[in-house]
């Protein structure tokens, strides 16, 4: 059964980008303001879930050829990896650091290792949520 939802599909094509941008915004603001990896990841994954709902699984899979289980695993790896990174520098496990850089385009920017950790969290959330939705919807 193929449903042709022209309106939904057209709207989705635009809305997905708005959701994705909002997700990234939430993710980046997470250091000193409300936001962060978990919430950002949830918003990002809602964009993917919307795509899967509107277009069918095969179409989306052609566009985003990831195994989302591996995305989740990679996220955990990144998060734990930043924790272990501090061990290499002789600090306690999960120690985070931050400092200011002058980047060419962005100007004075604060970069911190916590962002890598949060990126891991976000990837894990995206991977897990999409996997859950896919495994429920698999054979409908």
């Amino acid at each position: 059964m193929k449903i042709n939802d022209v309106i939904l599909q057209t709207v989705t094509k635009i809305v997905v980008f708005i959701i994705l941008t909002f997700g990234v915004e939430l993710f980046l603001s997470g250091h000193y303001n409300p936001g962060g990896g978990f919430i950002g990841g949830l918003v990002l994954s809602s964009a993917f879930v919307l795509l899967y709902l509107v277009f069918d699984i095969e179409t989306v899979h052609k566009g985003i050829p990831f195994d989302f289980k591996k995305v989740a695993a990679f996220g955990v790896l990144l998060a734990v990896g930043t924790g272990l990174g501090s061990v290499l520098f002789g600090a306690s496990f999960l120690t985070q650091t931050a400092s200011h850089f002058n980047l060419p385009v962005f100007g004075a920017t604060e970069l911190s290792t916590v962002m890598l950790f949060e990126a891991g969290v976000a990837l894990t959330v995206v991977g897990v949520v999409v996997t859950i939705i896919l495994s429920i919807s698999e054979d409908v």
Partner: protein
Amino acid sequence: MNNILVMPMIIPLLTGVLLVFIRSYVLIQRVFSLVSIAVTVAVSVTILNLIQSDGILRLDFGGWLPPYGISFVADSFSMLLVLTTAIVTGILLIYAFSSIGRAHENMFFYPFVFFLIAGVNGSFLTGDLFNLFVCFEVMLLSSYVLITLGGRKVQLVESIKYISINVLSSWFFLVGIAYLYGTVGTLNMAHLSVRIAEVGQGPLLTVISIIFLIVFSLKSGLLLYFWLPGSYSAPPTVVAALFGALLTKVGIYAMFRVFTLIFYHEPGVTHLIIGIMAAITMIGGSIGAIAYNDIRKIVSYNVVIAVGFILVGLAVSTEVAIQGSIYYLIHDMIIKALLFVIAGTMIYLTGTARIQNMSGLIRNYPLLGWLFFITMLSLAGIPPLSGFIGKVYVGQGAIEAGAFVLLAIAFLSSIFVLYSLLRIFLNCFWGETIINEDDDVPLKKGMLIPMVLFGILTIALGVGAEGLAPYVSDAARTLMNPEIYIDAVLNSDS
């Protein structure tokens, strides 16, 4: 700062994650998981010896000092359990190689075993009550996956009960944490102990401690074991063995930690209740163990009896009794894994789980028969096997404390253990053989080797208890004197 402390949790976690990426390469998965377990064992031994020379170790995550940050604390008790967990898992993995089947190996079986181990080790090492909850959940979520993996009907149905019960007990855990935080305003275990010693353990705090008692008895199967036999007989042998050997022990560990470190001021209430619960558990377990003809059920009820027995040590709470409990805890992790594996192998060989349908197995599989015999003696507590020393110390402690009723029930339950297993032995291994030479299912070497390894371990633990003694007595001393633990967590700068 002792970053090595986090390794028993991080190595399994990283291994599990990396194994996800190589799910289709079974051979690499096997080698990789064995290597990782070997490293975990080595790290655990190192930490255990470090504790003997430097005292209790502490690691503050991210350099946030306790009681504000999350910390891992390792004393002899927790490290002994971490070490045993790693060894038992390693041997069970060898059994899994030949028994679990290709479909499981491709469906993330090994990663989830490692996530389970990460959760178990994290629970043993954490020094923070909320972190204990998180590690419990890591362990439980992995166990949910492992119990359903394969998706047979009975697994699905049993896992619904298992998960519902555990969701409920997690809920009680959170309620307990909420009330405790509202009352004393901290969740670090050492800090909790100090605060409660300051204000005194009034009726309110005692009630909160009972909530924790409910939580941990649901997890460990103390009195609230009604869910256990069903859930532990549904999954494949290896998974059942992992659960039987490790999961209930985490609940027991938490109970020991909480009732010796935090809520130790009102033994007349809390420890009395634990004693009564232990007694009823042993009686109920004994009745269950002799009532069923399904070998998996009998074995599961044996887990229940052991839980009751170990907690006799906590109920009487003398140093000798606690030593006995620790010996018995280590022994039980090894021997329950062996018992579950043997039971699973018997089912694999005969294709039935009912003991009246098996007969004369010792003729076809002599080594299996003798291994079962050793297991039986070890569980009954015959010297020089590993169960003996634990039973002696628990008994001695109970006599010191004058808990004669508890002592009588504990030793009577040993006789019931012996009887229930003797019934299996007489029915299944003796008698006329029912398997003729032609359709004799060969016993794979890969199944036999791990069983022999467990057999060697139980003998070695019994004969070499002397070598383990300094560690165990240090562990018991730390448990009986909370100030050692508190001092290491709050006052030392590491």
